[in-house]
């Protein structure tokens, strides 16, 4: 069950070191296709897998490089606190994770019958 979640985390993290910010989708789609069990499974794996990576990295940066810019950007967006930016940094990848994981899994559904999947479950 957790293999998809961890694979998404690993691929999202390493992919972003070289590829654009949305590259998580490039990995989540095939991973959900291969390892997805059902929609619930791919949705939570995508949501937390992608979201956690950004959130944790944002927290690490906050620890190591300070938060002067973070506070300025919060004020730029009239956010009452920096927490909103951490929330944003979680929600954006999480949403994309859900969408791309569902998209990947839906492809698999095109080829394999519901019944087959249910049995496997």
């Amino acid at each position, binding site marked *: 069950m957790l293999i998809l979640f961890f694979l998404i985390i690993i691929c999202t993290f390493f992919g972003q070191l070289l590829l654009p*910010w949305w590259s998580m989708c490039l990995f989540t789609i095939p991973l959900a296709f291969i390892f997805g069990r059902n929609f619930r499974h791919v949705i939570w794996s995508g949501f937390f897998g992608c979201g956690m990576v950004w959130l944790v990295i944002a927290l690490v940066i906050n620890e190591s490089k300070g938060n002067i810019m973070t506070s300025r950007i919060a004020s730029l967006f009239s956010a009452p606190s920096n927490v909103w930016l951490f929330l944003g940094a979680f929600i954006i990848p999480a949403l994309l994770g859900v969408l791309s994981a569902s998209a990947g899994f839906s492809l698999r559904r095109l080829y394999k019958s519901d019944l087959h999947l249910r049995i496997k479950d």
Partner: protein
Amino acid sequence: MRLLRSVFLFLVTIILITLLNKKIGDIPPLGKLLSPFSGFWQNNETNKIVSEHLRIPGLREKVLVKLDDNLVPHIFANNNYDLYLAQGYIHAKYRLWQMEFQTHAAAGRISEIIGNKAIGYDRQQRGFGMVYGAKNSLKAMLADSKSAEAVNAYTEGVNAWISELEYGDLPIEYKLLDYQPEPWTPLKCALLLKYMTYDLAGYSKDFFLTTILNQYGLIAIDSLFPSKPFINDPIIPSGTPWDFSPLSLPPPPVNSIAVEPKLPFHHLPNPDNGSNNWAVSGEKTASGFAILCGDPHLGLNLPSLWFQIQLVSPDCNVTGVSLPGTPSVIIGFNEQIAWSETNVDADVLDWYSVKFRDSSYTEYYHDNKWKPTSMNLDTIRIRGAEYEIDTIIFTEHGPIVTKNNSISLREYIPSGYAMKWLGHEPTLELRAFLDLNRAKNYEDFVKALGYFQCPAQNFVYADVDDNIAMWVNGKFPLKWPNQGKFLLDGTDPSNNWHGWIPHDHNPHVKNPPRGFVSSANQSPADSTYPYYLNWEFEVFTRGYRINERLSAMNNITIDSMRSLQADGKNLIAAKVLPKMLESMDEKILTENQRQILKALRDWNFVAGSECIEQALFDLWWNYIKSLIWDDELGIKDMRYPGTEISLKTVMLNINRQWIDNKNTEKIETLNDVVNQSFRLAYDSLNSSFGSEWNQWQWYKLKSTHVNHLLRIPAFSYSDIKTGGGKLMVNATSGDHGPSWRMVVELKTKPQGYGIYPGGQSGNPGSPYYDNMLSMWAQGLQKELVVLHSAAEHNNHIVSTITLN
């Protein structure tokens, strides 16, 4: 059904990525921006300054950059090419966005970044001939081997930094506005210098004066806009003999003034630009060494205009401030000399009416014949829209800056104004700075100034051999008195500029008997100076106060000079307030009002940050001026007389026909104006800050702010608590003020102190973005670290960047 679901999910994913990947309206690309891998998070910085080893293509030998605890780089290179390459690299490392944005602004390319909103500004910059002037200067720079070496090396250095950048490393402004830096070019260095030239020598009053002349006649001009100051303590002390035999002036034509004035240009640089500088000789100082001070008053912005640096090569060891975007140190000191500049405000910008043959604008009338114009087609690229082609027409006077900058000049009536501006000439200011950086004595200094043409500056000088000097320096057109005070008739060649004032005829003085030299943008010389430079200069106050203090002071120290730079004595108030108080009718005042008048009577005229009297005086005086002048001169295309005339009007109770408000039946007197304006000022403070007048502190009214160049409040500072104000030595007004303060003692090894309102880093996420701001506001300065060799131990040096 499943196929549909699949297609739908893919589509939504792609749409969401696309939406979050680009700027929509003013909303930055949120996906890119919020990504901790490359977005704004990466622009967070701590105060740790790390050592690095970097490979820089193009370097000839190893360069060491020692960084001190204020993030000031001290660059040690074995040759000048490497020195300026490293300066370019370091400037870009800390200030790339600002460098590029300012040169884009100079060139009229802001539409490329922010779209349609900036099109008017861009057209105006292009119409002004900024690129034309910069290209002319670049030609001169590239033809001069020393300037060419510096500018080419600098460009290579900037580009070395740009080529290393990945998205995550980009300054935050690129991420917010969603664009990328382009390669740097030598033209951009020239553009940056033109940007400063425009700021300091791009102001013109000719149009307003012509409108007033047409409306009220020559008598009004002579009484309200005279060409001689009322109170004058000139830069070159009165009585200084001129060591040259003057050229004869061109004869004024019978009628030189253009008829039918039309506004030639909308946007003008801020007239608040001004500065102080002075030097005192060793006989007046406690240490026996000369001391030099300078504080250029310019727009206060973040990232700061200035960048502190020390540049060391085999023939140079100079410390001071540089302008990101151009090589060399602009204000500073080396091992022998120190220098600083203030603006001269010579009239080097004139407008000529142009008579076109027809609406094709291909020919214009000049010197009794039709001459061909030349046309430049200029493409303005606009983000998110089609590009636009702008036509700029040139006559021998200069480019035509049209009234409404319309896209097609054909819709405009066949008469525009040509702009004659020294900034269009191929001038070579960079060479002057390169030589000043290396000057060893007064002769070297004067020789370097020979290269400095525009914007004309008052250069103060001091050296380790206890010489002090002042040069009112620039390239000045030879004019008849008042030539260019009004718009000029461009058909008559006798209205042209008639050659130049020779450089050694520029007003100057070395080691005057009074033991000090000073300048504060006031009139450069007394009436014995044989040439015309401008009809109006800065009002006497700052210069007068500085000279008064320097004359009285002895045993001068660094500290006493720093406090003079922060002097907030309001000489306007000292002159005019007694007369204002005398005109008050106290019978009709409330108890509260009577009390505040008493406070004003006891005031020592020092405008401290918390001073209530200054707040009331400032508003009161402004209301007086507008009640006197607004009915006649407050209309469009006109201006008020200078401060001196308002002062004279109130002090001597003259100009009664102007004091009367022509819109009322009653004949108003000075007493009416003073009493009415007092109530207006009192009520205004009452409604802004409440009825308790201990809440009417000056700093609240003045509201000094340092804005980010993009006016982003989250990157800016407002309501900074500082004293001083316009026309005072501490000339800190709302958004203008001492953009750099420096004091240098010319000891055997000169020692300097300095501060500017900001910090070395251009990154709003760095502690070094604003770390000097509060010290600056308090009038304090930091000791400037000077290293004599790369190996020298200094407690302030915290890291080394090795470039090879």
